């Protein structure tokens, strides 16, 4: 590990990508993620590792550039924020349909429409319930610190290539913009073309040695075949759900009440737990780290212990639907959150816990 550095979450994404041996980054500037584009153009990773950095003409183009590089077996990624992510939904559906591995980072801001440049978590539905057309899933990681921004980039690439599926890092303007200490691993070299040929026999880089041609496509005009493909995709998603659920439990051992929150809301909830416990309220936090696959069972397991659950997110209440699915009516579940770029304070969350769950 390197020395401890003080960095913005957005910059940590960029540095982590260079260090984990990424091959290409294609992106378009948008607040509050522009520091990633700026950091990577400033760093000139083409001189450090040979990694390509290119500013695209739009998010539509950048996600399709990612498609082209990923179809060649290269580690490619893009980053954006909510309105840009909406433009990428077509590309993400094609990437999922063509079973291509890539990483996409969404530094979420308030919507709908042009909305605001301040932090939000209102892209949860778009990310984990579809977004683009067709039955597909994005493996979704939700960092809650600058350190996790750095750690999840190599993890996202690992999962993307393990399952040949796009992986999303769903973060927000708080984590993207705030500075914290962060440590990086040593440089992992980029794969050589020979290694790619060996590791990814499905990739399109020319019929090396006269091998049979490879085709990357998401088209199947025969519906019987397309159904078979969908069945195969769903089987892959069941594997992801079996193997890749990640979450963290904080002060849950004696908890009588539970917060469920991810990303920056989980950080605010940690402070709220301190305030609540000072008043004698035993509350814990279950923090989903993967939003897809979602930790339904871990949340369900808590229902034998807690009297009520407050789902806290910066939205009108999106993830709360998954908490309710997990809980299935066994205990009370309510949502609390600010919208449109407003960030809840620990005091507000404690008040919501009291009025919506404890007294409610």
């Amino acid at each position, binding site marked *: 590990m390197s020395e401890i550095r003080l960095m913005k979450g957005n910059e940590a994404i960029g540095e982590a990508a260079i260090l984990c041996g990424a091959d290409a980054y294609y992106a378009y500037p948008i607040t509050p993620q522009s520091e990633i584009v700026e950091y990577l153009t400033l760093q000139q990773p083409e001189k450090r590792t040979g990694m390509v950095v290119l500013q695209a003409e739009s998010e539509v*183009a950048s996600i*399709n550039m990612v498609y082209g*590089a990923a179809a060649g077996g290269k580690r490619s990624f893009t980053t954006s924020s909510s309105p840009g992510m909406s433009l990428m939904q077509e590309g993400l559906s094609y990437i999922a349909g063509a079973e291509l591995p890539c990483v996409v980072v969404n530094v979420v801001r308030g919507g709908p429409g042009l909305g605001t440049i301040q932090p939000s978590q209102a892209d949860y539905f778009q990310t984990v319930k579809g977004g683009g057309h067709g039955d597909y899933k994005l493996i979704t990681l939700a960092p809650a610190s600058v350190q996790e921004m750095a750690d999840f980039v190599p993890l996202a690439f690992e999962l993307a290539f393990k399952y040949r599926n796009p992986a999303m890092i769903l973060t927000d303007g708080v984590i993207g913009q705030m500075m914290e200490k962060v440590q990086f691993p040593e440089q992992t070299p980029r794969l050589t073309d020979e290694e790619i040929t060996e590791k990814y026999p499905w990739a399109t880089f020319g019929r090396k040695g006269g091998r049979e041609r490879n085709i990357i496509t998401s088209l199947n005009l025969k519906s019987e075949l397309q159904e078979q493909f969908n069945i195969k995709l769903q089987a892959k998603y069941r594997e992801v759900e079996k193997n890749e659920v990640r979450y963290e439990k904080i002060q849950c051992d004696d908890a009588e009440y539970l917060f469920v929150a991810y990303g920056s809301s989980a950080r605010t909830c940690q402070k709220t737990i301190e305030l609540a416990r000072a008043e004698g309220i035993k509350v814990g936090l279950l923090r989903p780290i993967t939003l897809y696959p979602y930790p339904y069972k871990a949340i369900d397991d808590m229902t034998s212990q807690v009297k009520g659950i407050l789902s806290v997110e910066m939205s009108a209440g999106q993830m709360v639907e998954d908490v309710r699915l997990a809980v299935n009516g066994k205990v009370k579940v309510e949502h609390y959150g600010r919208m449109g770029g407003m960030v809840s304070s620990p005091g507000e969350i404690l008040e919501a816990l009291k009025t919506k769950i404890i007294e409610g």
Partner: protein
Amino acid sequence: MAENIKLEDIIKEENKVFIKTPLLTDNELSYCPGCGHGVAHRITMEVIEEMGIMEDTIGIAPVGCSVLAYEFMNIDMQQAAHGRAPAVATGLKRVYPNKYVFTYQGDGDLAAIGTAETIHACNRGENITIIFINNGIYGMTGGQMAPTTLPGMKTSTSPYGRTQELAGHPLKMTEIVATLPGVRFVARHAVDTPARVRKAKKAIRKAFENQNDNKGVSFIEIVSNCNSGWKMTPRKSNEWMVENMFPYYPLGVLKDE
């Protein structure tokens, strides 16, 4: 006597006047009989075979009639979302700068939904080959109006004929990209006669060879027919193309640097 002649007796090396390139598969073409796509596919694959670059070439198929190009082109292929092939090609070429990358796009794909991707890939001077098949209509979806549909031309979405008042003017993408410094070779050809096929093939070969010295986009338009969409016999559609398409989309080399 005729009954005694077997096929094997006829197919002998000394009798062959034409050999299909192995870079075309034996899959039955999905194009209508008489359509120019088949010839355009053949000469593109012949160029790749003759240059000996199969092991280092990747094609990008678009959305449109040629969405299934990967069924016929016996090389590594990627299928791209509608209009996005130049962006996909950019992403691929940047990580494989020594490979040959080409897109094969129709007029709806390149000149309507993919205009931004086309212009910007050209403006960046991506070191790729773009093959643009312009038949003035959306063939795949059943003959709707394209940005390249000629004035007065009847299609299923301009049933009374295209008017400038409603739909503007046919878009000359080839002339537009020729103005961009990132584009080094621009030519417009056709594949309706043997002489024109030879010229088109020569231009396609040059467009691939240009990738060797990294000087930007090579852009080849092929003005083609769509006998089904135009509701004509193949012969009539070729005559109509010569009379009506060529005056608006004149053949020749527009730029060679």
